[in-house]
């Protein structure tokens, strides 16, 4: 046995122009979450408890695209999704289309442990969340001003395409394409 180990990510951003201060904020948050996970592992917590603990923390901070701070749909709402898997026994749980569950990863864990299923979505998932007594909040809680502005920008620029934001200054410098479109049109995820 090689001992415990942990890794955390905040998304494979594709925007090379992400301001330095945002990168520093991201590093600080990741460090805090990493330390949280390290402390739990040192005290003998199970891997599945640790990944849930760390992801909950990341969901709660609006800096990343999950939980509070999630990207917006074309309807300017938030629809979140999450999953968790325990390698021991290959147990898993997943949820999609959540609009009011404060911590989607914990609902995914409840699907794994308290339901006969592996994956619940939309109204069924939120009904299950209510049954389980998980913390619910209004959809507004998840929406940040920054994301509202980004959605507006995306709509103004292209009302036909979905899943993208407007090309920014990165386009000329980084002519890499994704699905036939300049990489710069993708929201940094």
């Amino acid at each position, binding site marked *: 046995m090689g001992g415990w*180990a942990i890794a955390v990510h905040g998304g494979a951003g594709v925007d090379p122009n992400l301001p330095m201060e945002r990168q520093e904020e991201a590093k600080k948050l990741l460090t805090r979450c990493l330390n949280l996970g390290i402390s739990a592992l040192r005290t003998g917590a199970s891997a599945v408890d640790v990944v849930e603990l760390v992801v909950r923390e990341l969901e709660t901070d609006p800096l990343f695209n999950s939980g509070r701070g999630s990207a917006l749909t074309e309807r300017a709402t938030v629809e979140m999704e999450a999953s968790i898997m325990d390698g021991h026994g290959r147990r898993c749980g997943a949820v999609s289309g959540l609009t009011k569950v404060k911590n989607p990863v914990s609902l995914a864990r409840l699907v794994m442990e308290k339901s006969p299923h592996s994956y619940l979505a939309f109204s069924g998932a939120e009904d299950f969340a209510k049954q389980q007594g998980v913390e619910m909040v209004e959809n507004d809680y998840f929406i940040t001003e920054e994301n509202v502005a980004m959605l507006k920008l995306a709509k103004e620029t292209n009302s036909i395409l*979905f899943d993208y934001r407007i090309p920014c200054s990165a386009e000329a410098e980084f002519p890499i394409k*994704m*699905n036939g479109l300049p990489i710069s049109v993708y929201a940094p995820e």
Partner: protein
Amino acid sequence: TVGCVAVDSNGRCAAATSTGGLMNKMSGRIGDSPLIGAGTYACDVCGVSCTGEGEAIIRGTLARDVAALMEYKGLSLEGAVDFVIKNRLDGGGKAGLIAVSNQGEVACGFNSVGMFRGSASASQGGFMEVGIWE
């Protein structure tokens, strides 16, 4: 998207991923994050969490493929991650992933311009790294 993978002192692996998806996505769109085997996977040998272009990750079943390469082909964690990033993201898909093995190894791979939102890792042996990778 955010994610965490861990292996505990008993050698048990786990993975979790959570996301709001893509800006201006269609209502009802489901990405790779909740799909076991695509954006998230864990088994006896490793735990994997992915991020990036969800549709490409789904097509490539990235997370499960890392485990399968270790289980069936005997690749190391790093070898499996490299193989998947180089060979399974055909069609121009951009993605990144983090992984741990039951031996306490950590690996990260991506073919996007960078992991500008950052990633961090640590192990019992004292290794610790936090960074924006490009």
